[in-house]
């Protein structure tokens, strides 16, 4: 299957990974007793809002959301999508980010992540086909400028969006280097 394009907002959660959130979350997911798991995960999520980005994220903290997300994480663990393997890139997933060539996720872009992490694992579990993920993302970008397509650009006498151009270039690279 090539390509699958993930068009969406930029995600830079390397800091979240590095600051131990994931290690703590996983530690709880796989070691906490079932009767305290929900509350432990809620604590971890609330703690992330308390500390992430020099407390900037705290404006968005919500006990209701933390409870829902904690229960969803437990469900994903029970369904087999969240496993201890999620901490390490799968060895049969290839990716292309910030360069033009596809490479193994474990060699290139298995560190910072967005929705493509669980999505990639979902495909690995549920699809028999080889998968390539092409991520093109930039924080604060808009369809009106960064992703502006050629038709709209010509109509508005503006430049084609650099993110649009990058997506098309990476799709072409993917087609050229498609693994069979």
């Amino acid at each position, binding site marked *: 299957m090539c390509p699958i394009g*993930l*068009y969406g907002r930029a995600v830079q959660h390397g800091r979240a990974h590095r600051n131990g959130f*994931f290690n703590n979350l996983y530690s709880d997911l796989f070691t906490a007793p079932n009767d305290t798991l929900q509350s432990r995960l809620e604590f971890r999520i609330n703690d992330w809002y308390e500390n992430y980005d020099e407390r900037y994220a705290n404006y968005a903290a919500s006990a209701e959301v933390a409870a829902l997300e904690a229960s*969803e994480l437990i469900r994903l663990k029970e369904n087999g999508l969240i496993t201890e393997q*999620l901490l390490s890139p799968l060895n049969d997933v290839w990716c292309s980010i910030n360069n033009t060539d596809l490479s193994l996720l474990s060699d290139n872009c298995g560190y910072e992540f967005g929705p493509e*992490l*669980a999505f990639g694992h979902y495909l690995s579990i*549920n699809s028999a086909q080889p998968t390539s993920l092409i991520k093109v993302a930039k924080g604060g970008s808009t369809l009106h400028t960064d*992703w502006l397509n050629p038709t709209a650009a010509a109509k508005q006498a503006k430049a084609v969006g650099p993110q649009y151009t990058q997506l098309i270039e990476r799709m072409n690279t993917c087609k050229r280097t498609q693994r069979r």
Partner: protein
Amino acid sequence: MSEDGAANYKQNLKDLIQYVRTQASNPNLPVVIVEIGYWAQTLNQVMQAQQDVVNADSHAILVTTDDLSRYYHYDPAAHLIMGERIGLALDALLP
């Protein structure tokens, strides 16, 4: 987002999908759109545009996120949950 950006969002999204499908040589390429985040859901025009595009395109689907993180880049737990939702949405589009 500028007024022009919001006003043109629907057409720009339709055009982008069209271009990507052309580039992929697949006019029915499945497209999964992740709903704009909770923090920006006061942008009714954008939310409606996303819904309108999906309603008019039998090979596109919208993933809802309004129950997840209210932080503008979501939180790490939300990203894991969204990943599954995108997968499920894609499955719903595939034959």
